[in-house]
């Protein structure tokens, strides 16, 4: 334990503290958990990547229906494979931490729900989102007419400028009026 903690230099630790919402202890714990996921020979490399398949086995993410989306959103990988470096991992934890602002949380929630990464939640995104929420198996899914009705309801409520999609500011408008979003959008190691 002591050895993994010493791997983070003091400068990078203070830099991470400045750039994320995490405390020193949280960063050290994150580093420990992250290095456990790395292969032996990678442990010394700073920008080593952990593949998505391994990240989503973390107990904090395992039963989350959005686990793959979360990895993809926070990944800076060129191949878009959802693999995370340690810094990406810190980004993830920072956004899901206790002290992150509603602004940040809702921003990342929007990006997680935006399955095709086009900057708006359109009908296809909403359909995928609803499927994630109800469960993906065939008997759990809503029927197609139910889905259509539901999506038109969502759009009618939250698509304020009536362009057929929910954009970020409309999304944040909805989120800001929900009292328990901040407490439920949270992953703590």
């Amino acid at each position, binding site marked *: 334990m002591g050895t993994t903690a010493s791997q983070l230099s003091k400068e990078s630790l203070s830099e991470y503290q400045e750039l994320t919402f995490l405390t020193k202890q949280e960063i050290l714990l994150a580093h420990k958990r992250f290095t456990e996921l790395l292969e032996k020979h990678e442990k010394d490399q700073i920008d080593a990547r952990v593949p998505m398949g391994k990240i989503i086995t973390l107990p904090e993410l395992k039963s989350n229906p959005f686990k793959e989306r979360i990895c993809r959103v926070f990944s800076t990988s060129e191949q878009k494979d959802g693999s995370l470096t340690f*810094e990406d991992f810190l980004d993830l934890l920072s956004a899901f931490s*206790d002290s992150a602002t509603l602004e940040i949380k809702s921003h*990342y929630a929007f990006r997680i729900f935006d399955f095709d990464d086009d*900057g708006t939640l359109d009908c296809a995104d909403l359909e995928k989102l609803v499927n994630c929420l109800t469960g993906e198996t065939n008997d759990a899914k809503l029927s197609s007419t139910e889905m259509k009705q*539901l999506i*038109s309801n969502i759009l009618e409520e*939250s698509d304020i400028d009536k362009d057929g999609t929910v954009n970020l500011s409309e999304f944040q408008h909805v989120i800001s009026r929900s009292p328990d979003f901040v407490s439920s959008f949270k992953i*703590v190691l």
Partner: protein
Amino acid sequence: MEAHESVDFMRLMSEESTVSTLSSDSCEYYQTEIFDLLPSIQASRPEQNRHDFSEETNQGGREAREKSGQLSRGPRDKTSMQPLRNLAMCIQGKRGAKERRKLEVNDINFWESWRKSQSTNRKRVREQIKEALSGLVPWEHTLRTIEGKFGVGVKSYFVFLRYLIYLNLLHCVLIGGFIVGPSIFYRSDKYEPLSYNENDSALNFFLGTGYVNRSLVFYGFYTRGSLDLKCLNTPLLYLAGIFSIIFLSLILVVRRTTVGYKHTWMLGKRYSMNVSYKIFCGWDFTIQDPTAAALKHGFIRNDLKLFLEEQSFSLRAAQRTLREKVRLYLLRIILNLIAISLLGGAFYLIYFATQTSLKKGNSQPHWLVSLLFQYLPPITITFVNLVLPHIFRKISSFEDYSFTMQVNVTLLRSIFLKLASLGIYLFFVFTTTEQDAKCKENQFGREMYKLSIFNFLATFFSVFFFNYPRKLVQETYPRSLLARISGKQRFLIPFNVLDLVYSQTVSWVGVYYCPLLPVIGIVSLVVTFYVKKFSVMRCCVPEQRMFRGSSSSVLFHFMLLLGLFMCAATLGFNHYPLQSTEGRNASSCGPFRNEQTMFNVTGDCVKSLPSPAQTTIRYLTSEAFALPLILAEIIFLTSYVSRRRANQRAIERLKDMLVMSSSDKRFLVKQHATMLRQRNKQH
């Protein structure tokens, strides 16, 4: 089909645009090249684009940098003030931003780091304390298991039960402080000490007679003791205790009701975001346990299905033809008539039972028969309240209402039944007890005592002698006729809540005559908690359709409020004649004996005060004060209402403007895209 379209008219705008995404996706504006360059999109996606931009600018030189600066100037002005960690971008991007801000790379000094970690620690400690306190709250774990298995609705019943226990605890504290404590401490010696006579028996505890009648359970015990100052005597304290109970309950219940009301109904239909909440804030990211996740999936699915079902029901209701409507309304009128006649019959039954009980109750030779006659009114009331709500439920299922509406109609009828039957019973007790005026208040308190005891016994026995055997029969002989007829048991939240409201109302009504009712209430509520928990966990299957948690709790508290009003009305009704015909009605026991009433006790107190205080109190209770008060309230309310209207209008206008400008944007972007395409073709 036509009707369907006209109903859907409101949604035409959005539907049209969703269709267009499918048909002409090449031309949809958010897939055009320029879309990513729009300032609003830049602001919402700072990470990817800003990052790309910064790289671009490094390569492309000053001009591009200038351009990008102009494009996203608005958001950058805003973001340049924020601390770096508030930017929604990856750490690499934040480093870039830091350099761009030309901030010196001064690492956080010791002091700052310490301060930051301290503030986080404080937050942590606060949260831990909160968690530890919530661990101290009784039954938190039980509630969570129940919620996981049966949904929010059933949990809301148990939360309500716990709330009532708190409320009764508060009552107990008030009673102990204002009524029981002073009375026992300053009890004058001329009254005989409380003793157990030889002709007292255990039966007295059920009937509230004999020993119990003489004890501190009832009104008659609280005589005027040695504490006999003008403004500090036991009668006054008694009054203060009762009024503070009623007043505090009123405040607490009203507060709970309005909090819920604000969330559910005040927002109005046009501003409601119910479905969007369910979707966007539906998932709880803290869930780690796979079974909890599966439960959450199931819960969200059921909730959405219930919502959709109700919506399609209202669509179907809007499509009914005139003939169907006439038939339906006829049916509803007939069913309502049936319900009213059932209510009438129930009231007559209660009247009959009360009369019989009062005539024959005390003149029976055998104690068991006597007990039965004494308990006849509570038995009748509980029986009626047990059977009729189920009939109402059956009736409302024929009336073709939506699911929530069915529940609400049944609830409305049942609450009317419960409170009205209690009211009628009280009225009969009032009007018929006058001839036997040894201690009228005690007798009245005794009726309330019997009601609450029997109510508790009914819950207890209905679980252990009805629900549990039924479940056992189903388990041991699953194929027998009996098991198939009885079917699966569900936990009917509305009826169970009604029972709670009813017993609380009895407790409030009776507390003046039987001050220890809240203590009995606490005991019976705690036992009820465990009995009901057993019944839910052991005998019931989860509901397929989820009962709405949020709106229902408003309804629960509203019913409680009705009960409280009933209590206030009873007290008022009971004391008004005291003032008008004093000689006839002066009571012979309790704190207000010997020509004392609650009015002249307070009057004596006021007279003993110094004269400025007297005049102030006179002024505060006179019409001269009430009128300005009402006027001031009216002015406040009017100003709030008009402000609300103005805000609403502003919101409407802003919404319209938003729609207009967004459609302009869409038009321009599309135009630009087609022009670009044409130019590309020409080249």
